[in-house]
């Protein structure tokens, strides 16, 4: 395996006395597509939210691109990361949220151009061209002037994906991107994600309950339970031949549910 782009070392995350992540060790290689599955409350979102700097960690080290995410170099070793460091690190990451989290007061186009212009400093012209390419990729070229609340959930989530991609991240984080959608709209979003998965360079970390899809697109599947990885392997290994009793029970419940 080539050098990991994401590395969790003995990471602890707790809320009060409750340990959400328990000495988690976890690595993702550059370009790897990893799916995280597991019961609700097992810490799947927390892993992504820590990477997107939405949650701090309480112990251990998280590295992105070989550099600590939540720490920076001080005069005497590592100190907690300050905003400037976090801003530098965030450039490498993009996130797609379960509830889309589009900006409701901006048109679709504006949702895609605002951050590239004000954060990356792109000209209006360049940001627009980038947005139009991405809208084409997600099949929404004709919706550029609409507001999010004029779109279906599936369309909104495709805008959410395009908006994250507009920042050209190296790592894309998907937190249950289809869980808020009506069943008939799930396919169109998964198709877009599958298309992205063909991109050799893009690292993808996906939390989902769509097992068939996970099997198709991922290089590796991790089963999370109680704040740690209980079992992981290639989709074939994990889905056809799970070793752990917990994994078997979970898969049985999901596939029958």
């Amino acid at each position, binding site marked *: 395996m080539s050098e990991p782009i994401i590395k969790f070392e003995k990471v602890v995350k707790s809320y009060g006395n409750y340990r959400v992540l328990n000495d988690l060790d976890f690595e993702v290689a550059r370009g790897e597509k990893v799916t995280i599955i597991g019961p609700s409350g097992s810490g799947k979102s927390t892993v992504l939210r820590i990477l*997107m*700097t*939405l949650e701090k960690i309480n112990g251990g080290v998280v590295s992105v691109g070989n550099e600590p995410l939540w720490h920076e170099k001080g005069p005497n070793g590592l100190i907690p990361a300050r905003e400037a460091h976090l*801003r530098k690190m*965030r*450039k490498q*990451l*993009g*996130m797609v*949220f379960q*509830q889309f*989290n*589009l*900006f*409701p*007061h*901006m048109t679709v186009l504006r949702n895609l151009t*605002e*951050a590239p212009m*004000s*954060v990356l400093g792109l000209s209006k012209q360049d940001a627009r061209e980038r947005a139009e390419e991405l809208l084409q990729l997600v099949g929404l070229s004709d919706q550029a002037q*609409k*507001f999010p*609340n*004029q779109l279906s959930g599936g369309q909104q989530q495709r805008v959410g994906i395009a*908006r*994250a991609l507009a*920042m050209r991240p190296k790592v894309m984080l998907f937190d249950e991107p289809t869980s808020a959608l009506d069943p008939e709209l799930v396919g169109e979003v998964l198709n877009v994600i599958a298309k992205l998965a063909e991109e050799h360079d893009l690292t993808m970390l996906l939390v989902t309950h769509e097992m068939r899809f996970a099997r198709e697109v991922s290089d590796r599947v991790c089963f999370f339970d109680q704040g740690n990885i209980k079992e992981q392997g290639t989709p074939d290994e994990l889905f056809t031949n799970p070793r752990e009793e917990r994994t078997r029970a979970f898969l049985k419940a999901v596939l029958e549910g």
Partner: protein
Amino acid sequence: MPWFDYLKPLADGAWITVQLTVFSTILGALLSFIFGIGKLSDNWAIRAISIAYIEVFRGTSLLVQLFWLYFALPIAGDAIGLDLRLPPVVAGVAALGLNIGAYGAEVVRGAIQAVTPSQYEAATALNFTSRQTLWKISLPQAIPEMMPSFGNLAVQNLKDTALASLISLGDLAFRAEQLRNYTQDSTTIYTIVLLMYFGMALVLTAMMRVLEASVGRWRGARS
């Protein structure tokens, strides 16, 4: 005196009332944003100043604030060798604006805080600075939420201008009182005054509605 003879002096007063309302509402809106945003600042000094302003002006009566600016400030100024005498219009606009701004600041703070956390998370994920997040994400969503309360405050402010007659500002209430002293025709005069205030309030409310619709167009958008 026939009733229509009252109209000219009352209309003159009403014009002063309109000016007082407009200028103090604009001042109040500015103060609302400055101190409402200030109360949410990361900087404790800015936060402390904002809280102090809001609490002082909400916790004391407008009348006292008005008298303080008009009567007490010049004397306080005298003591330190400064001429702080304010023309009645300035004292009136300042007192009304400062007062309404303190209430408005709480409206602004509340509306900003009511923007859902998931919007801030999206802003963080896209690497906006906190200043960009305020100006581009949270304020544009918060402003339409503030408008109904701002409308109420503006009408409240219009009604409060009547207090300015107590520092001899020739507003509508002052003119009415003058006429009444002169003619003793309370019923007619105050009926006209009532209607005039009510008419102004209607116009103000309509204007705030238009403003509300224009800042919140995206909310109604549906195909």
